[in-house]
């Protein structure tokens, strides 16, 4: 009956138009990929030139900077060394535990603060004071507070990830559509179930954004923590390479941190997409 008349909006574009449009999209993507590759190659070339020619720009000197090939060699060596697994294992463990703790606390507190007046009044002022303090500034106190340096490093990564997660969750919970809440109530949702049934899924896209940002801050806080008190870990490896004047390994450590940070953020976003299949549809319509 009327299903014929008001057909779904989800229908594919007409076949005739699909071919050229897809081809145009492919061409656009290919051009973008080419440009990205070109820029990466140009950066590498510039680095190679600067390092091999020992450029000295007055305030900035490349005299001690290792060239790309040396770094590649150091990376190759590290790849075949048993230390790599150890460093990676420690760093990943610290990031994972700090991040998980921050995610749980940040999401729970964020939902409460975003939805409940008393939680906002009671919890937000102290958090607002703590928020501008960079995680690195917590290092001395965390060494004093925790019995092991392992725990204090996990705490630093926790602090780094907590605020991005909390902040985004608060915004997400505040932005929940009042009409959805009213509809849920009218459908028999008790107040205690409202959080899980409506507030959490409504805020989920904002929470995933917070988790993805928090994952990034987690990594750079970890590195600062490991530089000061550590025996293993990528951050420690980077700093230790400096103290033994193994300059190529510094860059290997840096790049490793970058790749791991990017990879874990990508993982979070992919996880978010898998958990929220509706989100892509909503975004496409917007």
């Amino acid at each position: 009956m009327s299903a014929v008349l008001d057909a779904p909006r989800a229908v594919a574009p007409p076949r005739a138009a699909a071919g050229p449009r897809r081809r145009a999209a492919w061409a656009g993507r290919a051009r973008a990929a080419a440009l990205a590759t070109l820029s990466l190659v140009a950066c590498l070339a510039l680095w190679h030139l600067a390092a091999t020619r020992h450029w000295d720009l007055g305030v900035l000197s490349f005299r001690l900077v290792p060239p790309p090939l040396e770094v590649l060699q150091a990376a190759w060596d590290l790849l075949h060394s048993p230390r790599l697994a150890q460093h990676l294992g420690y760093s990943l463990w610290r990031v994972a535990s700090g991040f998980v703790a921050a995610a749980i606390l940040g999401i729970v507190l964020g939902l409460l603060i975003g939805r409940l007046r008393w939680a906002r009044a009671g919890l937000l002022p102290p958090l607002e004071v703590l928020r501008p303090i960079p995680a690195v500034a917590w290092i001395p106190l965390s060494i004093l507070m925790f019995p092991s340096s392992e725990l204090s490093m996990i705490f630093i990564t926790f602090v780094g990830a907590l605020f991005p997660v909390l902040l985004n969750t608060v915004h997400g919970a505040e932005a929940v559509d009042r009409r959805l809440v009213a509809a849920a109530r009218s459908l028999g949702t008790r107040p205690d179930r409202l959080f899980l049934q409506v507030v959490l899924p409504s805020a989920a896209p904002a929470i995933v954004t917070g988790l993805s940002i928090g994952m990034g801050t987690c990594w750079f806080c970890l590195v600062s923590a490991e530089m000061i008190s550590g025996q293993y870990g990528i951050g420690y490896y980077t700093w230790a390479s400096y103290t033994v004047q193994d300059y190529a390994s510094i860059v290997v450590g840096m790049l490793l941190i970058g790749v791991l940070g990017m990879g874990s953020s990508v993982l979070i976003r992919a996880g978010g997409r898998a958990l929220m299949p509706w989100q892509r549809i909503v975004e496409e319509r917007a």
Partner: protein
Amino acid sequence: MTAAPPLASADRCLPNGGLPAAASLPSPSAVGGHIAARGLCIELGRGADRFEALHDVSFEVEPGEFVCLLGPSGCGKSTLLGALAGHVDPSRGALSVDGAPVAGSGPERGLVFQHHTLFPWLRVVDNVAYGLRMRGVARAERRERASRLLEQVGLREFARHYPAQLSGGMQQRVEIARVLINEPRVLLMDEPFGALDALTRLHMQELLVRLWSARRPTVVFVTHDIDEALFLADRILVLGPRPGRLVDVLPVPAPRPRTADWLTDPRFGRLKRHCLALLRHEERQEPLERLSPIGLPEVSPPSWRFAS
């Protein structure tokens, strides 16, 4: 689907008059509720912005009756609906359903919004089954019952879609199915077809009458469309703006099932002219802002904010 016999129109005009036709239906939980409002006043807003949205409104709706609230935009008809749903508190007066004062919202008073409020993260079938989940019905059973209801609104093939993949008319059909699965005694509808194109609206009106005939909940249907009210309602309550108050009560004498013949009936024309005269008389120079059944938006901004 068999249509219930039409109510005798004389019965509908009398308070507490007549036996509800729905009493003969096999499912007693789906029988419509009795609504009574006495001296109802509702004030909205805070401080200097406070205004009376509804002033001294009294009426009754019989079980199983289909009533339309007709009035210009901003006259408080949606606010009245919100009070019936339990989302807006009356300032004075009494509002009761089946003799019990309305306190808070509940699944026995289903509310359908003008723009759908389907949960974007749930598939259509799970949106419809939501009320059953809140009641602790097992997954297999609620999916089955939701599918049956989807079939009745003509959307069986779309059970696995997400709401964003449907057209406006389809979304509204899902919204109605989601409310009906709770077998509400009262069905409250806030201009549910106002955002749809004319042809879709016509189909939706027919579908709604069909669903109502089979179940016989009491329906309170808000609209500013006179034709819609005359096609759907047993009785029309006409409201005037600021403060919103009851201007007239018009029984619609057409027998059911209603067909296109009714639209060309001289009585239809007479009633329509009468409504038009009432609305024109009540209309102000500039149209008022539309009110919502969930009250005004929160005015006080949060005192503490993350500076970001």
